[in-house]
């Protein structure tokens, strides 16, 4: 199945915050003037170097958050969104620690806390609708579609208005690719998008180690068993020798009689 995604064109965003409000409505969050991601704000519009930069979960192709979650509470769905299931979550917050985009937020002041992040309105997508923020955007700064469609739209915008764009799409290769793609008028680092991410999915760094574990268990077990066997033999021999010596020392007469018998 082709993954859906959202193309965010920062050159078109007018900073009206309609997306923030639509998102708050969908989640039942309060509407505030504090424009940063939090446990009550799953999408926001930042102002970075005079550019409006909508931010939200990137819905990575190989999500770091889903890879680190010990109980699989986070999941990359077939449709593309990365979703969170609170009924599984143990609250270890490894997802927050590991997400390369620092997206997941926590309900710190609840005794029954949840992780909070955008789910690209998974339920709406399944029902054939667009995400709420896309629907609310009056400026076509957020476009919904399959990743193929989005790339074509981006190329088209580059071709029509080359002067307006820095001719690259952010999210094609970052951390192995994401379902949220960005266009900008200047290099992405200048609008606060992280530039130092590898092109491969981050989970491969841990998998390189994790995949060795079964081997390690097998060979480690064999090796330890072998060492035990050898040192045990040695010990038995040592003990036996000690015993013999003791017998010889305490009972020299027996030794003589043994000799005599042999003779």
């Amino acid at each position: 199945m082709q993954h859906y995604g959202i193309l965010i064109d920062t050159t078109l965003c007018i900073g009206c915050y309609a997306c923030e409000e639509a998102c708050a409505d969908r989640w039942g969050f309060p509407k505030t003037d504090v424009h940063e991601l939090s446990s009550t704000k799953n999408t926001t519009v930042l102002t970075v170097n005079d550019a409006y930069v909508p931010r939200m979960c990137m819905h990575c192709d190989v999500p770091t958050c889903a890879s680190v979650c010990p109980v699989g509470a986070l999941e990359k769905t077939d449709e593309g969104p990365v979703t969170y299931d609170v009924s599984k979550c143990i609250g270890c917050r490894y997802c927050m620690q590991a997400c390369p985009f620092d997206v997941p937020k926590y309900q710190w002041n609840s005794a029954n806390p949840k992780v909070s992040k955008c789910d690209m309105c998974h339920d709406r997508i399944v029902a054939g609708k667009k995400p709420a923020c896309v629907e609310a955007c009056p400026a076509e700064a957020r476009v919904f579609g399959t990743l193929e469609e989005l790339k074509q739209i981006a190329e088209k915008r580059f071709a029509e208005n080359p002067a307006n764009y820095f001719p690259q799409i952010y999210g094609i290769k970052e951390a192995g690719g994401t379902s949220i793609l960005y266009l900008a008028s200047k290099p992405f680092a200048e609008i606060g998008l992280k530039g130092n991410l590898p092109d491969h999915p981050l989970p491969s760094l841990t998998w390189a180690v994790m995949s060795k574990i079964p081997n390690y268990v097998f060979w480690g077990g064999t090796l330890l068993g072998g060492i035990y066997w050898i040192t045990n033999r040695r010990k038995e021999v040592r003990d036996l020798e000690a015993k013999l010596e003791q017998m010889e020392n305490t009972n020299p007469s027996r030794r003589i009689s043994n000799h005599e018998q042999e003779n």
Partner: protein
Amino acid sequence: MTSLLKTPLGKIHRMTFWTAVFWIIMALGLTATVIRFTQGLGAATNLSDKFPWGFWIGFDVLCGVGLAAGGFVVAAAVYIFHLDYYKPILRPAVLTAFLGYVLVVVALLFDLGRPWQIWHPLIMWNPHSVMFEVAWCVMFYTTVLALEFSPIVFERFKLEKPQKILHAIIVPLVILGVILSSLHQSSLGSLYLIVPEKVYPLWYSSNLPYLFFLTAIAVGPAMVTIESFLSSRTFRREIELPILSKLGKVTAVALSVYLVLKIEDVVNDHLWSYVFTFNLEGLLYWAEIILGAVVPIILLSYKKTNRSKKGLFYSALFVVLGFILNRMNLSVTSIEHYTGAHYFPSWMEISITLMIVALGFAGFRLAVKYLPVFPKEKEANEPLSKTFDVVEFIGDKHEHTTVLN
């Protein structure tokens, strides 16, 4: 003997002082516990979205698990390598490890946002997650430690049948324990493999799992050493110096290999500029390397210091402090640098940790009092054994009694 000079009254005062400290810690800890579980993590801790892992993960878990490594190192030495001279420290080491792991789990119950779901990894699997693997290893290894420790309980209550069963399975059990330990000791380092851009370069390394494993091997025996000195003061039972000298050598070897890997990182990852930038991170890095590795290696390699009580004690202390510094540097200093946010634990985080540690001490004390944890040979020792009997009954006032004896 200075203790003879002190009046019994002075002794009692000292005991009441420590008892008072214990109860103050408990009171603060319990208050913080109530706040933590009624108002959430935010009310009790200085954690935030920018700093999701703090003191409880950095100290209680990363350090706690490492400091309890003596259990598997000594068990492997005795059961698998048949190094019989380590036998006298087997029980105290296994006891400390067991208590250590129980405390780590207790700390996790505080740190997890939804602790009542802590058992979820049992049925909800994600084999890609390092945390999942750590959860399984810790769960299993705590069980293994309980079994390794159980013969002491059986011996106390003269239960022969279970004693026999355990005797029969102890070797596979210890092998399992060693595998589980080496897995999760190293995996605690692997937790940070996935955030290469967040960890400060001096602490990031593709060798993180090996570095964690080696430091655990180094710090385990060091903890056993410290513990032996402390218990010899408190319980009047001690472990012979030659054993501790040998343990010191284990530490020295592990730390040497560790140092080589650290140097390799600097060379391979071209970290020279970071090493010689004397910012906060650079200074902490040097403190950690010199105090936690170089100094103890030197102390433990010289015959003179490796064979003296003082030399052994101080080198063990350096190893432990260096170890704690290393874990805190990775989990706090280096992440602080990335997020730009400052983090220092709140009084509640600290007092809950203190409470957990205090409970550990109390548990150790009780176990030593009622179970045959320390070697029998010593108890057979005439003048000492008399004191023991009294100690066992009078408990807290035993120092006083010892003086009378």
